[in-house]
């Protein structure tokens, strides 16, 4: 039997718990609900954990999501390789700058590629989005609040499409991505510009905001 995780499970199945800390807590620290959950887990079947989910300390859910979005034709190996090269590239550039900087400015240079990645994504997330709502035969672009997941999705999608299309043909993907991420960290670059344009459109269509009924 090949261990493959299906996507449609019976709702009876429970999610797997991967983190080591959840299992090392002794009996006394648990509240009654958590005790009930533990009993439930001994009785009910559990879904198979996906391959990309690890219990290692270096696991990052946002990073895994980004790698999945960058993946083409199911080639996760290549997508992960590109991502790792991007992080290494960012780290190299920042560490070089750090070692060549004078002592006073050394503290301000951020060398951690993960911190840069998270901060750059934060800077790219739009606050409001536009939805196409039909009213009286015409479609209007109405500004609506977005959920957190949706905002994260937009940031990642813009980043990837921008790197794939708007850059010079002969540079590697990891090079393009690292340039774009560093620019987003400094709040410059095309992705930030796109976010600002979306905000301006939303501000311009502010009058139609009351067309939203939810």
């Amino acid at each position, binding site marked *: 039997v090949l261990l493959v995780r299906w996507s449609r499970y019976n709702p009876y199945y429970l999610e797997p718990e991967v983190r080591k800390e959840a299992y090392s807590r002794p009996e006394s620290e648990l509240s009654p609900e958590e005790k009930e959950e533990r009993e439930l887990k001994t009785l009910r079947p559990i879904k198979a954990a996906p391959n990309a989910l690890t219990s290692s*300390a270096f696991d990052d859910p946002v990073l895994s999501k980004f790698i999945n979005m960058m993946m083409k034709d199911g080639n996760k190996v290549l997508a992960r390789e590109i991502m*790792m090269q991007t992080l290494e590239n960012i780290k190299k550039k920042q560490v070089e700058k750090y*070692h060549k900087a004078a002592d006073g400015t050394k503290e301000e240079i951020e060398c951690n590629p993960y*911190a840069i990645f998270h901060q750059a994504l934060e800077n790219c997330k739009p606050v409001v989005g536009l939805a196409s709502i039909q009213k009286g035969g015409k479609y209007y672009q109405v500004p609506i609040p977005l959920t957190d997941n949706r905002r994260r999705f937009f940031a990642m999608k813009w980043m990837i499409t921008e790197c794939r299309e708007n850059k010079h043909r002969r540079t590697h993907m990891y090079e393009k991505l690292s340039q774009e991420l560093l620019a987003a960290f400094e709040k410059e670059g095309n992705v930030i510009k796109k976010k600002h344009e979306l905000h301006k459109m939303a501000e311009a269509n502010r009058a139609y905001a009351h067309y939203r009924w939810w």
Partner: protein
Amino acid sequence: ACHSEKHVGQFYTLPSAHVRHLFPNGLPWCFQHQTKTFNETCIMVRQPALEVISCLKKADYSQPALRYLFYGLKGSGKTLSLCHTVHFCYTQGWLVLHVPDAHLWVKNCKELLPSSYSSSRFDQPLQATTWLRNFKITNEPFLSKIKTKERYVWTKREATEAGSPLGELVDQGISRVKSSSDVVGAVMKELRLQSSQPGADFRMAVAVDGVNALWGRSTIKRQDKTAVDPEELTLVYNLRKLMKNDWSGGAIITTLSQTGSLYTPKSAYLPQELLGERGFDSVDPFIPVSVPNYSEKEFESCYLYYTDRNWLQHPQSRTEEGKKELIFLSNRNPSMLERLCGFL
């Protein structure tokens, strides 16, 4: 370079002037990137290199040259041990003949000329000129001191007289690209003859990386698509003459390499498997030095070095658990550790 057993596991910095002269492109690609990022060249002192250095200090140089061979699993640090030993020889003032990778001479050849010296052999002008340029940068003080003993005729109008300095020979090879492989052969012959004489005031260190390329097969094909044996290449032929033990006054330090080698299985790392029968017989009385993965102390020191240079940035990698994970994932293999720490 006066290292002893007490310094095992500690890093030492190579001065950048030495690096520019010794290794114009002799260091492995990843290590060059690391040097550029950290703004300094640091090699760890390890047991195999220390053994070879102590042998070099105590050897008797009137006897025929001793052959040392570094072997080990893929990525366990053979090339860097070779560089460490070569740097030691350079600081002692020896003449260094460093071939960064013998596999580059045996594959991906863009220009192949029939040799002017002997009709059955082939020349490789590009690789010969790059090697001569690097040789010139490395051994500048010796180029004016050593004189040639014989007369070499290149074409009908050009000849180098006996008694002219070595620098002229090398310049001849760099400017006249067509005869550069023959110049390489002439340089090697001169140095071999001169270092064997008891009156010579210099010692020669021949450092070859990927020595199994000299006796393996090659991917170069002739015009009619028949394969070329490495023996028929002038560069390889002359290098093999150097590897024979008939000269004295120096040492031969070599490394095996599976990564560049052609038509060998990936799991082969022992000398007998990689050199083949012919190779093993020609290198036969040699001193094998095995290069293992990092010991615990060496791993600690490498980890501390990366942390000190601000290279390990992930917050989790600085904890105990992160360290245990790194040991597990890399199996203490130096190249795997470098790749892992690259993005962590």
